[in-house]
């Protein structure tokens, strides 16, 4: 069936509506913010879960991220897209969490040769999928892998968010990819 509403008009309508929703939320409308939350929670939660590798921790942090977004919503001026603004805020918070605790480090010893790791052998036996394999990575390598290879961030941006040197970031990425190749047997 052919759409009865001209598409151009529809596109214009959408744009206006999305902006209105943000503006409404900025003026304190919680229903509008709930719509924003529902739109973005899947993406934000995916980043939390992949970097933190723990569901209950990801739940906590995702809640905090949306609460922080509500508090800081007035500072969104539309210079970037709203989603970029939100995801950047989310990643800054996740990185803060990672730094502030020892929680979330996968039990792969940092200096042990990856091939000899019993966890890797274990993973081999289970024929892990990538999603599970990521949770086996050491936390810094995991964060770099998720941000670089899944979220498309550049090394400079990741290094800045993590407060590490670009070289460290590159090394962690190589490490993460190496471990994953071994774990996945590819």
């Amino acid at each position: 069936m052919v759409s009865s509403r001209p598409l151009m008009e529809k596109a214009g309508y959408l744009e206006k509506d999305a902006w209105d929703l943000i503006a409404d939320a900025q003026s304190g409308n919680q229903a509008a913010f709930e719509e924003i939350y529902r739109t973005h929670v899947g993406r934000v939660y995916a980043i939390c879960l992949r970097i933190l590798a723990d569901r209950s921790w990801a739940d906590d942090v995702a809640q905090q991220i949306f609460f922080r977004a509500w508090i800081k919503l007035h500072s969104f001026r539309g210079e970037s897209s709203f989603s970029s603004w939100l995801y950047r805020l989310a990643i800054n918070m996740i990185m803060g969490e990672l730094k502030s605790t020892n929680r979330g480090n996968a039990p792969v010893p940092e200096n042990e040769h990856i091939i000899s790791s019993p966890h890797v052998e274990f993973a081999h036996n289970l024929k892990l999928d990538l999603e599970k394999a990521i949770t086996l990575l050491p936390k810094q390598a995991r964060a770099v892998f998720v941000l670089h290879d899944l979220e498309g961030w550049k090394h400079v941006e990741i290094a800045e968010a993590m407060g590490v040197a670009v070289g460290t970031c590159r090394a962690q990425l190589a490490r993460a990819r190496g471990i994953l190749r071994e774990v996945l047997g590819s």
Partner: protein
Amino acid sequence: MKCEDFVQRMDDYLDSALPENEQKTIDAHLTECDHCRRQIRSTQALLCQAAALPKTIEPDHDLWPAVKANIQASGMRHRSITELARLRWNWRVAAVLVAIAALMLAAMIVFTNHRESRPNSEPDPTVRRNVREELQAPKAKLAPSSISKQITEETTNGAIASENSSARLGQVKDSTSCECEPSAETLGVIENALLVDESLPSSRSVEVVSDRLFARALENNDDFFLLKTSLDVLPFPYRVPESVRARFKGLHIQYPDNAGITYLYSYTLFGTSTPEMIRLMKQLIAENPSFPWPNLALAKAYGFPNMPVDMSSSGYIYNDPNKIQTHIRAFMKLCPQSPEPIRVLFPATDSPFFSATVLRMRELLVTRTDTRSLLMYPALWQMEGDRRMGVVDMNELRRRLSADLKQLQNMAAGRPAEFLFVLVSGYQKIGDMGTVRALVAKDGSYEGRNAFVAFDSQEWSANNPAPASDTTMQVKTAYWEKRLQKNDEWIKKAPESTFAWMDRLKALSELKGHPESEFIAVGERVQSLLRENDGFYLDFLKTASLYANRDVRLEQIPSMIREGLVVAEKRDLETKNDLVSAEFNIGMGRFNEWQYAENAWHALFDAYVRIADMGRARSVLDEVAKGLVDWRKQIADLQSGIRPVNSLSLSTMTNGLVASEKWLTEARGRLGSGK
């Protein structure tokens, strides 16, 4: 370069973060080192897997109540945010606020639970859904990319999108990830869609298949590969229905920031707005370097036409073998397991690159069993025998081809009609004509039956050469009677074959002993088949010549010639594309049409002279002279550079013109001398 150096640089290489010279050094190392090649492939495979992970994961339970509780607990803060900022230094104030917030939080949780149990306080669920749907592609709506904005502005109407699809299209997966292969499930849908009514000619069935794939895509969450295949089956850049372009334009307007949709829309511009297609594809590559498909689209455009480069030459505006190579390389880096480059590799001239890629393509293709891949075998065989492969051991080539064919025949059951041509082309290549005959003889599809007639007539003609023009009438008659008998079999096998009926008409034009009514009945059948099946213009013109040779219905012949030219013009319009320079469009193709039409006029002139109707014969010469005036002007334009043309085409046309002028002078002489 040593392997250790490569390992150090591999990630930067994959991220295209190395200077060009280092990138090239690694390329060179990879062509030599198996170990590093394996390593890079496994990393690429990993990155593809990573790119294919879902972008969203829903939490196990709804987090909103907790977020909302926090928000409500902080209600005071939100109202006086600037005031709060001023107070931030005061930790005591902050501590008090936190304590208050904690108290409020507890109170609000109770309050919220209470409120949520009241149905009227819930927002209208339909309103929520609408707003959510509209936010589904938020980036698109908030910040349309420069590409999409421009296209959206250019578009005014004509977009087609189904109501059903518009709800789902919000979920169109952004295919910027390195998606090289359809899923097994999608592949199954494609296989089914390829099986169509076998009584259709392939020119019709591709449109049926394309429509069907598009419909399946809408039923399958707008699967990128189903949408892509719905375009791949069409003969871009020729004869693509406008409705197909409109479909993708519609999708693009709805999802301007979805790279997959932008790619598909851009591809529909191939041949009609090729510069724009090239620009959009380049921009897609710049914005989404891990999205592989624009590379192949560009390789195809730069390789147009897909024939040996020696034959292509200057008329093909975008032809650029270096760029073909660059884009094929880029594609192979992103999709190292995909045999798709076979489709665009042929015009890449560089021998080492060509031969290395052909070898790699064979490795990849032999692991495939899906029909779309199997249909690539003839292209592979053609390339394997190409001189760019270096010295080819013909016995080895034949042995390999036979092994392929054996395997392909085992996989033939349940394949669409086109699959027959893969086998036929292979067996023809190894010279096993017995198997070719057996294959086409048992195939009952439209294409199969027509192929049988073509094959059988070719074989029959090879064994029964037509008599020379100076043989006796008796010998000629015996030959054409025999052919007419054979023709009965062909028509029985493929009653809709224009070729078989044209062959019959030719025989009857030679057999003057048969009644005129028999000739006319066959002639009418030929003309109706040509009209029904979008016949080739040349067949219209040949039919006109056969009528003239037989001295039948001469008064209808001028309109038959004109019909042929109208058909030719229609074909010119349908196949017109902006990949070919204007002089090629206007040049040889049109010249051939004119020459064939002229042949028909010559035949008609001869017929009028035979029946001594000199008045009408003279009027035919006037028609010929009119055509010559047009052509003299066309050639003068080409010579003067108003429409530049290559020298070979120009000399062919000039020679043709000289020969036609000579004929005209002689014919006028014949009329003048009363012969």
